[in-house]
């Protein structure tokens, strides 16, 4: 770092920042000082501050994307506060103090008891021995050399790994929201599976207790070295509320030779009320680099929440014989909007990709699949199979499919199938004539429709996801 920059970093904050530091909340607005504040608060090395500032400058030169099939009022980025120190939440003494409505929801979803407590903000150690669960978990992972911690901890404890991989899959200037995230991310998860290690259990962000308050600009980095494999679970079926309307996360996955990363997401952010007021804008950049030969990256997502979902978990298939997969269920109801899909970039020889996308729209909602399959001239023998199915419930919703296919190699095979169906009066009548009521009928039809995707989820997650869909569509038919 240059001496000039060093001076800049080390000088006291101008513009009245000094007192603000004490309050632990940055003033609204985004400028270089905000970024320096974040970096200083987190005691980051200089190269990371440089990374952030570079991203910030890229961001300044960019404009918000307009191409997506969603509508929302313009976001005022100067009205957002970009740093707040995580405050310990007030713990409740027992489950009896939890809002009964929340308990009812947990019940419907079948969320495991120990998770309910944690999610509801009950001091879990009072009721369940959850702390020791987490400790055992961490010890077990450490034994085989797996690092699983918050990205802030990783910056302090494993800076060489962060420096080596951060921003290598999603460059700082990749897109508007990724640039913003790179400039201001406050926390997230880091996961490193060393050479030859098969992670002995599914890694769930839930178990990483300090994710509390990881904020609206979450950053995740997962690395699987040669021959390593991991199944990573993000999110949970329980509804999540947040006072921040804009969420712009970045997730980067790197798979080296013969490595295998499976990344599953269940997203149930607050979607706004039935009139479309409120709700989270979830603008996420997720990308996996299948860097090594025979590597595999598999995305599975169940998107049920947010007022607006904008995400395209993608795979760059650079290694020869590498495999990319994308299995997605996106449910929209009321006035929700989702524009989601994937990108499969075939670079290596004999690379293969599979896309299975299921969109379900109800109420006044709109759901779009947007996917790119690109086969580079180098990708001899590349293969892709895409299947995009949409289901409509009612006559006020919309489903759209935007497939982009760019093939620049003659030996490639690319297949695309699409269908649209509707849950109508006749289907429901068939069920009711067999004694089955409408809610159960819809649930059965939907779960049949999503079967190919749910099969990809870890077992318990799949059961919860099944319940979640019924819950989200409750009352949409009738």
């Amino acid at each position, binding site marked *: 770092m240059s001496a000039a920059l060093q001076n800049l970093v080390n000088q006291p904050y101008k513009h009245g920042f000094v007192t603000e530091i004490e309050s632990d909340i940055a003033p609204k607005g985004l400028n270089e000082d905000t970024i320096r504040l974040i970096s200083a608060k987190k005691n980051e090395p200089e190269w990371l501050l440089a990374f952030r500032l570079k991203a910030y400058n890229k961001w300044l030169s960019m404009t918000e994307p307009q191409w997506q099939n969603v509508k929302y009022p313009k976001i005022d980025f100067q009205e957002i506060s970009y740093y707040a120190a995580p405050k310990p939440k007030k713990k409740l003494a027992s489950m009896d103090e939890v809002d009964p409505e929340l308990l009812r929801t947990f019940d419907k979803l079948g969320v495991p008891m120990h998770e309910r407590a944690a999610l509801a903000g009950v001091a879990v150690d009072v009721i369940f021995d959850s702390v020791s669960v987490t400790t055992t978990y961490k010890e077990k992972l450490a034994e085989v050399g797996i690092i699983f911690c918050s990205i802030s901890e990783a910056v302090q404890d494993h800076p060489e790994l962060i420096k080596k991989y951060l921003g290598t899959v999603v460059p700082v200037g990749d897109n508007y929201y990724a640039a913003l995230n790179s400039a201001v991310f406050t926390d997230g998860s880091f996961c490193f599976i060393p050479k030859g290690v098969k992670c002995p259990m599914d890694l769930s962000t839930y178990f990483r207790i300090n994710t509390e308050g990881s904020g609206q600009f979450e950053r995740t980095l997962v690395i699987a070295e040669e021959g390593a494999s991991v199944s990573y679970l993000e999110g949970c079926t329980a509804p999540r509320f947040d006072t921040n309307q804009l969420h712009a996360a970045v997730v980067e996955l790197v798979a080296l030779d013969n490595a295998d990363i499976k990344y599953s997401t269940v997203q149930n952010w607050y979607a706004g009320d039935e009139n479309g007021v409120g709700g989270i804008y979830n603008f996420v950049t997720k990308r996996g680099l299948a860097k090594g030969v025979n590597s595999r990256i598999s995305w599975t997502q169940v998107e049920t929440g947010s007022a607006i979902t904008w995400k395209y978990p993608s795979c760059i298939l650079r290694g020869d014989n590498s495999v990319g997969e994308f299995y997605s269920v996106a449910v929209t109801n009321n006035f929700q909007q989702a524009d989601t899909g994937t990108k499969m970039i075939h670079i290596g020889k004999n690379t293969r990709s599979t896309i299975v996308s299921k969109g379900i729209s109800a109420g006044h909602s709109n759901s779009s699949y947007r996917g790119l399959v690109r086969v580079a001239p180098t990708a001899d023998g590349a293969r892709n199979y895409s299947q995009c199915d949409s289901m409509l419930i009612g006559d006020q919703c919309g489903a759209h499919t935007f497939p982009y296919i760019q093939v620049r190699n003659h030996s490639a095979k690319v297949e695309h199938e699409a269908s649209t169906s509707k849950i109508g009066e006749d289907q429901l009548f068939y069920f009711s004539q067999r*004694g089955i009521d409408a809610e*159960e009928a819809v649930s059965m039809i939907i779960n049949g429709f999503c079967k190919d995707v749910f099969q990809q989820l870890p077992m318990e997650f799949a059961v919860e996801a099944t319940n979640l869909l019924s819950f989200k569509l409750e009352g949409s038919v009738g």
Partner: protein
Amino acid sequence: MINQNSKPLLEVQGLHATVNDVAILKGIDLTINYGEIHAIMGVNGSGKSTFAKVLAGHSAYQVTAGAVLFDGKDLLALAPEERARTGVFLAFQYPIEIPGVANSQFLRLAYNTVQTQRGKDELDPLEFDDFVREKMKLLEMNPDFLDRSVNEGFSGGEKKRNEILQMALLEPRLNILDETDSGLDIDALRVVANGVNQFTNNDNATILVTHYQRLLNYIVPDYVHVMESGRIIKTGGKELALELETRGYDWISAENSATEGAVL
């Protein structure tokens, strides 16, 4: 068979119904006793299938006048699923396909829902599997039906057998078979008809909605009714069906309008 001592299962009185404000049923009167088989015949558009759907409670049809008693109780006051649970069964002319849902799963849900309503125990997947396989033998169905998605990729004959299998499982009191013979070759027709015959007895009654006489060679009705323009215009015994086969429908139509003329 005609059971003189039997009490009425279904009493339809002056039933009128519309779809999208167009009158389809214009005054149906029909009484069906336990143990009886009634065939309802008529040309396309005469209202046969509408009558079947109105009895089952399809929401697209509005009953505008009349009453339907099922075992003495008001059937029209019940939602379609309640009618099914109380014992009204409709074998569909065009059964829907449900991709991704195993037939066994669907059949068990329907069976357990109806069992619960009747205060009986539900069957777990293993018990149900044994139970359903027995019923399937009677319909000469291949057991791999259970693992396939409901009606998806089924041939016309397979779909109809699946309907009759559901009838056998749910043990309804009123079986309404809507054009169950359509799209069946002669072998499939025989199997389906045999199935129906095995499940009809003095504890239930059957309505066969059909276009053609040939089904009635296999399932012999006690009464044959001819529908036209939303009304039953002639009722006879099984021999009426044979007469329709040779003479067509026009003569009844003519006879009927002559009668109406005389009344006026």
